[in-house]
């Protein structure tokens, strides 16, 4: 059942259109991640759902009810802010109890709900501390606790891990996923970090300049990106792009001239790309040292040895950056030409409009 529905949602600040007609359905219990680069409108979209920003046009439905004109508290949402937004002068207990105090719940009920949230979030021993005495991860948990006690239909998270260091971030990521499983609530999570998106989401919404670029499961987006933007945004290191021109498209194979790199034949049924300038994409982790369906020679100018992986950075004759990701620690010295091959079935093709050709 659809719990959140966005219909033709738009938001403008004076002349600037920030959200440009968004349609989205979120079903109950889903973990949805809004991901995109800075300024793509993901936080604005979340704030519109929360009721912190007015809607310029379109509709927001929560649980089948249009909530455009309802204040946040009547929407059945709870939000966790990037800065945690903890009240520095209140104890952890009072921070978590704040929404319940606003509701004027009896003390016994406040104790019960705060106690339950503190237990889930392992904050029982910290209830009398002030936020200033807590670590970043504990502060984050307090902010989540404040959301939990409201028992909302939908949790909204606005880049909640971006203030944490890398180790704590991955720890909190797992805690959030466990929390989602335990509560079974709908969660909408905003991040610019595609690793967070890939690891946490049931459904990823990729935003670009106020529009949805693609919606799908993490692996859908990884294996079948709809366009150049999604292909470049999802995956780390990012996908390699090589410009070329289609010399033939006979309904079974598309042949692309890659200039100095040679000609590549890709299994595609499209005939419409014939004669077009296109982009060929191949993920760094799909490259192999040596031969393949297609092979090219590059000279790495930087090599990163990560133990588990080795990453090479080179520049192609056309000026494009070309990154290779190889398992283990192969012998790939900097400045020495390297033959790299890949399977054509793992190659992505994008037409001159940047849309994927399958």
């Amino acid at each position, binding site marked *: 059942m659809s719990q959140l529905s966005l219909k033709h949602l738009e938001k403008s600040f004076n002349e600037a259109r920030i959200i440009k007609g968004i349609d989205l359905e979120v079903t109950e219990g889903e973990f949805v991640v809004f991901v995109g680069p800075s300024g793509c409108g993901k936080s604005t979209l979340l704030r519109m759902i929360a009721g912190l920003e007015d809607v310029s046009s379109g509709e927001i439905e929560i649980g089948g009810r249009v909530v455009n004109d309802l*204040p946040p508290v009547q929407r059945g*949402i*709870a939000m966790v*802010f990037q800065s945690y937004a903890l009240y520095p002068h209140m104890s952890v207990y009072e921070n978590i109890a*704040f*929404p319940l105090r*606003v509701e004027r719940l009896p003390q016994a009920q406040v104790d019960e709900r705060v106690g339950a949230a503190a237990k889930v979030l392992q904050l029982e021993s910290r209830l009398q501390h002030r936020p200033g*005495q807590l670590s970043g991860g504990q502060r984050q948990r307090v902010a989540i606790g*404040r959301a939990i006690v409201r028992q909302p239909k939908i949790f909204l998270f606005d880049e909640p891990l971006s203030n944490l260091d890398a180790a704590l971030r991955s720890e909190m990521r797992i805690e959030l996923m466990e929390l989602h499983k335990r509560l079974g609530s709908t969660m909408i999570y905003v991040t610019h970090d595609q690793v967070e998106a890939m690891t946490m989401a049931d459904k990823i919404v990729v935003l670009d300049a106020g529009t949805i670029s693609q919606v799908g499961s993490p692996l859908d987006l990884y294996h079948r990106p709809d366009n150049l933007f999604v292909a470049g945004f999802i995956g780390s290191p990012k996908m390699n792009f090589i410009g070329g021109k289609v010399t033939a498209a006979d309904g079974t194979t598309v042949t692309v001239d890659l200039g100095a790199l040679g000609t590549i034949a890709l299994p595609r049924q499209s005939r419409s790309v014939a004669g077009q300038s296109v982009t060929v994409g191949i993920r760094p982790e799909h490259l192999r040292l040596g031969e393949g369906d297609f092979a090219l020679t590059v000279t790495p100018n930087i090599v990163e040895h990560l133990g588990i992986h080795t990453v090479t950075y080179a520049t192609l004759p056309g000026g494009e950056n070309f990154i290779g990701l190889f398992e283990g620690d192969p012998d790939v010295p900097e400045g020495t030409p390297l033959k790299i091959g890949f399977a054509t079935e793992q190659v992505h093709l994008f037409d001159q409009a940047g849309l994927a050709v399958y």
Partner: protein
Amino acid sequence: MTSSRSAVMFALALLAPALIYILIIVAYPLVDTFILSFTNASLRPDYDFVGWANYLRIFTAGNFTEVIIRTFIWTMLSVGMKMVIGMCGAVLLNAAIPGQTLFRILIMPPWVVPMAIGIFMWGWMYNGQFGMISGLLQNFGVIDRPVAWLAYGDTAFWATIVTDVWIGVPMVTIYFLAAMQSIPRDLHEAAWTDGAGRFYRFRRITLPLMIPAVLTMSLLSLIATFNSFDIIWILTQGGPSGSTTTMIIDTYKTAMGSRKYGEGAARAVVICIFVSIFCIVYFRAVRKLSQGEAK
């Protein structure tokens, strides 16, 4: 060792101009006043040391105790009103209301107009025959005859406070506004998301987070108001019948009016002791607050 000594010498060389300035402008007059307070100095060229006589006299003869009490009442009322009005002004200026820029401009004149001109303006407004206040209140039927507000003890006392508040409120408002705007917007948004209304947010978030600013401003304002001279002197010169005579006015009258420099100096030393206590409280409060923030 040599390098550490040269570092000390270098620091002293840099500090020397400021130290000399402070010694001449602050320390010397302070010490001189303190010494003078133990003498019977007057217009006569020579004077004698009289020990604690001046201090004993100001606390046993005359009405200095009454002046001290009046000074504290005057100061507390003025500071209290400045804080309350300043806070209300800051809340209004901080609210997203139409004409906010106009209000921000309108609050500035008391601060921008030279103080003496502002005080003279109030002097005319308090005038019984030509004053605007008396005229308006008669028009509205609040009073039935002209009232010279500075001619009676009670009204003059309040009139000087009102003028002091008028001059002091803009700075308090701007300071409180800055403190209010430094409260992260997220806190208000989080509270609003949780259903807290404006007044609830003000009571449980804004006000508690403003305490450091209120405390700092109260103490600074207390020191400035306690020493406020120009307003009372220009409006009433401490009258009528001493009803607006505060410690600073009393000291000036004794030293410069009666030419009793020794006794005036003793009164100045008493003022200095009170202000020093305020300063100690202020610095302790600031230290405590900064330690609290560090936690």
